[in-house]
Each structure stands twice: as C-alpha cells, then as structure tokens.
C-alpha cells in the first residue's frame, strides 16, 4: 500500500468557524502588544506600578483618540440630521 502523504485532501473552508479577521487581529497582530505588556509585568527590572502606568497610557491614548471622534459624530447627528 502506498502511503499518500501528499495526496489530495479536502480543502479547508477558511470562513467556517473563526473568520480570518478575528484570528488575524486578536491572535496575530496583537501578539507583539500582548508580549510587551506581559514583559512589563513579568520582566526584570520592573514593577507592577510602572507596568500599570504603561497600560494606562495605552488605554488612555486609545480612548483619547476615539472618544472625541465619537462625541463629534453624535454632535454631527444632532446638529445636521
């Protein structure tokens, strides 16, 4: 009997189950960020207070970017539409 290691297989349906964007963003793109944040808390030299300050920077800057946009959007909706 010939072992068909490279025989034809049924192609994977990439859209079945977890869609590409979900694993791309949360399991690939964000890995460097997970790593950096984990290293802030677990690496040496380090302390949890400084690591938390770093996380506050990350979260705070994200909010500082999008919350004003969101408020502006709501205002546009109220004023113009």
């Amino acid at each position, binding site marked *: 009997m010939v072992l068909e290691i490279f025989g034809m297989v049924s192609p994977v349906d990439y859209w079945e189950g977890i869609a590409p*964007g*979900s694993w791309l*963003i949360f399991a690939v793109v964000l890995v*460097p*960020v997970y790593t*950096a944040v984990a290293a802030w808390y677990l690496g040496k030299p380090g302390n949890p207070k400084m690591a938390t300050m770093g996380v506050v920077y990350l979260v705070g*800057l*994200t909010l500082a970017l*999008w919350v004003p946009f969101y408020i502006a959007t709501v205002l546009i909706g109220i004023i113009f539409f």
Partner: protein
Amino acid sequence: MTREPSEEDILRPLKHTSMWYFVALGIAGIGALIWVAGYLWQLQHGLAVTGLSDWGSGGGVTWGMYIGLFIWWVGIAHGGIILSAAVRLLGMDRYQPVARLAELLTIGALSMAGLMILVHTGRPDRLVWSVVVSYTETVHSSPLVWDVTVITLYFVLTATYLALTLRYDISRLRDDLPGLFTPFYEVVTLGYTEEEDPIVERMVWWLALAIIILAPLLLHGGVIPWLFQLMPSMPGWFDSVQGPQFLTIALSSAISGVIILSYVMRARYDWYHLLSDNVLRGLTNWLGLFVLLFLWLQLQQVISGVFAAPISVGTVTGAMLGHPVYWFAIGVSVLILALIFASAIRPSIWSPTLAVVFSVGILSATLAEKVLFLVEGLQYPGFGLYAAIPGAYFPSLVEISAFVGTVSMVTIFFLVVLKVFPVIELHAVESHDGDHGHAEVAD
C-alpha cells in the same frame, strides 16, 4: 576640534525663535488654510467635488489622491519609529540624535494618514459608525477595519513610547523649559522618580520590540497592502508581492522624510555635530538599500505580468508599463540608486544637499507610483462594471489642496513641538559625554 554636544544644544529651539520660524509658520499656515477651504467646499457640496463619489467620474476611479496620500503618509510615518526602535534594540547609537525627530515624524505623518481616511469617507461621522459602533461585526471580515485597528495601535504604541522617554528628559530639564506648558510637563512626569529610569528603559525596549514587528510586518507589509491585494476583482492589486512592495516604498519614503527633517533642523539650530554628515550619509545608504529592494520587487511584478499572465493581469501590467507616471517613478528611483552607489565608490560625489535632492526625488516617485497603482487598479478591473464610466482620472484641486494642507500641517506640528520639548533626546547628548557608555556599533 570636534564640538561636544551639550544640553544647551538641545534646548536651543526652545530658547531662540528666529524670523525664519515665523516665516515658516506663516507659509505652512496658508497651506493649511488652502486645504481647510477645499475641505469645507467638499463638506458643503459632497465628495462629488473630487469626482471620487459613487462610481467615480474618471473611468471608475473612486480611490484617488486621498487614498494615495493615505498610503504615502503611513509610509513616511513608518520609518520614523522603526529607526528609533532600531537605535534602542540594535544599538545603532549613531542615529540616536535622529530618534525623537523620527518618532515625531511618525506621529505627525500618521495623523495625516488618518485624516485622509476621514476626509475620504465624505461625511466624517461615517468613520465612527463604520469602525467603532459596528466593530464587533466588521473586524471579522473587513480589511478596512483591520487597517484602522492597526493604525490606532501603531499611533498609541508610538505615543506611549514617546511619553515614556519624555519623562526622563523633562524631569531633568524642567527648569529650562518654558513655563507656559507647565501643566503638560506635570502630566508627563506624574509620579516620576529616578529609580524608575532602568524600569522605563526596559519597558521602552519591549515597546520598541513590539513596534519593530508590528509596523513593518503587520502594518505597511500587512494591513495596508491587504486593502488592495485581497480584492480578486482587481487584477492590478490581487498579488501577494504587494506586502513587501509596500514595505520597501514605505521604508524609502520614511528614510527620505527623516533625511529632509534632519537637514533642515541641523541648518536652523546649528546641530552639525549632532546630526552630522556621517548620520546623513548613513541614512542615504539605507535609502539606497530600500530603493534597490523596491526596484527588485517591481521587477518581480513586471516579469509575472508580461510573460504568460492571465489576460486581466497582462492588461493592467501593459497599462502600467505604458504610463509616463510609472516611468517617472522608476526612472527617478533608478537614477537615485545609481548615484547612491556611485557615491559609495567615490565618496566625494555625496553631499548633504544631494541627499536632500535624493529624498525629494524618492518622495515624489513613491507618491506618483502609489497614486498610479490605485488609479490603474480601479481602471482595469476583472469585470465590466465600470465599462460605461467615461473619462480619465486627474486629481481634483480639492485633492491637491489635501497634499498641500497635510504637508503644511505636519510642518506646523513640528514648529509647535520645537517650542514644547527637546526634539533630541537628552540621552543622545549624554552618550556623547560618555555618561551611558553605549558601544558605537558600525552600521
């Protein structure tokens, strides 16, 4: 005798303001206002004023100079932080004086890239609805949402990086900084103690590692080209070489941006000993390497497109090769590459001014190539939907005003930052003094 860099050097922009500062501010202000007028016109009459709405009035082109500028600005943003991260991770200390300038270029350029997306949506409120409000649905399947996610991430990581490194500098130079921005300095240095220095240094190292993976491989070699290369209906775009191709263009334009910025800064603030000829020469050599890679990937694309390609790919490759804008981009790149090689063989050919000429040439070539890539990608789709759309694409005045406006706004951003905190890290001066004992690496 070699001049030793000092704190006084990096504080110079904060303490002295020449007439040229106001001239530059005035010119940039006019440029920004030209764009504001164009944008208000667009808001009043709709995206139709650019010809980019609906199916596009110019041969079916709906993504024109706005998206071209978006790619261009992300590209420029790109190298800034890469250079800075390389200084930290690879010990390329020669470039340390350029590091913060490069980080700031990232923030300024990235803001302009985001602005172009906002402007291109037509109605600005569409951005929040399509990105934030529907995020849990769209993240699964929309490359546009991936793009905005990674750009947000890149912006936030860079700003965190800058904020963390500023703590050291501002706390030490506080007495020499202008009183006007005291609240800003207090926020940035909140809870600062000298004991945190080695910890913050390590945190920034990890951030640099995250950025050096995220920015080239997942942003400009990832989600940005994926906006195009994942569309099977556009044969000019559907091509997996686009990732590396975009990356080489990004790195070339980014290094060009840093060269121009360094040249202007050292001339204005007498920083010839900090941003030395050696730094500019080194950057020029990096530029040569990235342009070489860009041309190599163009060759890959062209040979695949002309040899025995499917008809749709052959048609768009033929259109690209028949367009003068393409040959402008390639011709300028080849010429600059040849001159950079020649100056490596005969160093006397090179001069700082020539490095700036190369940089302007590469920035022009990359913008031209990317706008053409966009336009021809749309003009030669793999189906006949656009067949009845008449006309040809030419950037409207409103789009051209966006080019003028974004360059002006980045200039204003730098002019403002120059007066708020040092744009050269204190470490760069201290390492020249031997305070930190970094080993000089041959790069």
